[in-house]
């Protein structure tokens, strides 16, 4: 299963990718912001993990655009962000993310959220 990992922090991308490898997912594509992610997204991507605050295009904007595309309507999107006030979480939901992880996260939380969305990703 191929994951698209979107974050403007190279450190965070590496942490997420290493976490994914540790739970058995080694097929990953990286993007530095929403625009880059849109350019790299294709039907081979089965799961998206995205940050919120990024230059050029934010994680919520990226999610909205992806949801408007035929090939991005169903893909599970997990937001991993430092933003954690209620309004932000609701905004992310409205944009179309399927679940939400607050930074800093533990590998266990990442695994739980991915596991919960795997059936949808495999569909």
């Amino acid at each position, binding site marked *: 299963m191929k994951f698209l990992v979107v974050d403007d922090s190279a450190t965070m991308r590496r942490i997420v990718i290493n*976490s994914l490898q540790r739970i058995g997912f080694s097929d990953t594509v990286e993007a530095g912001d929403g625009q880059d992610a849109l350019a790299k997204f294709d039907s081979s991507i089965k799961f998206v993990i995205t940050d919120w605050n990024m230059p050029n295009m934010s994680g919520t904007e990226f999610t909205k655009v992806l949801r408007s595309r035929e090939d991005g309507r169903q893909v599970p999107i997990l937001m991993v962000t430092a933003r954690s006030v*209620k309004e932000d979480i609701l905004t992310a939901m409205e944009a*179309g993310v399927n679940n939400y992880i607050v930074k800093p996260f533990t590998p266990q939380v990442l695994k739980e959220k991915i596991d919960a969305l795997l059936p949808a990703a495999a569909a």
Partner: protein
Amino acid sequence: MTSTRAQEVLYESEAALRLVDHELTGMRDVRDTAEGSARVIPMLALSELPQILEQANAQILSVLSRLRESRAALQTTTLEKLATTHEKIREVTSATEDAAIDIMDACDRATHMVDELDAIDAQASPDREKAGGIRANLRDELFLMMGALQFQDITSQQLSHASAVLVEMENRLLDVAKLFDQNPDDLNSVSEGAPRAPNETTYDPNATTLNAERRQALADEIFTAVRAPAA
């Protein structure tokens, strides 16, 4: 006091200063002669002088009052902003230290595990099963070290916020300087050389390394209460 109120007070101070300037100009009543070259200052009627001076005095008192208010407004706004910035920088220091300690603790535990593995290897008949368990724990420790590095992303956002506040303060001080400077254009070069604030879309002003579990619980609670879109 809000920054908007501070700007209003500054604007009112500027207006009052202009009024004083206007009054003083009126006192001089300068006018050109018919030839347009020489200037004459007519004698003021002596009886008008006390009234004019009284008006000028009232305007000056008004300006002084506004200036005091401006100073108070600027002081309050500046202190509030700087206190937030100070708090962010203090949190960065704390987060950096916490992450460093977590990593050092993990290094200590990892080193101890390597020693245990060495001891097992030195045995005549090494306990492979025990060694396997220690290796798994060692991988966990190394993974924890990597996870601790998440502080870098969060502290980077906190520093961006602190930087934005400092740039805003600098711009505000420049605005005040322009208000009182006879040649505000001279300050434009200072404005041009001032650092630019980080792109506000790239950081969260409230980013923190603190209370991650509680914040995650809030997110989970919201996602449970409000059904997430079906994937």
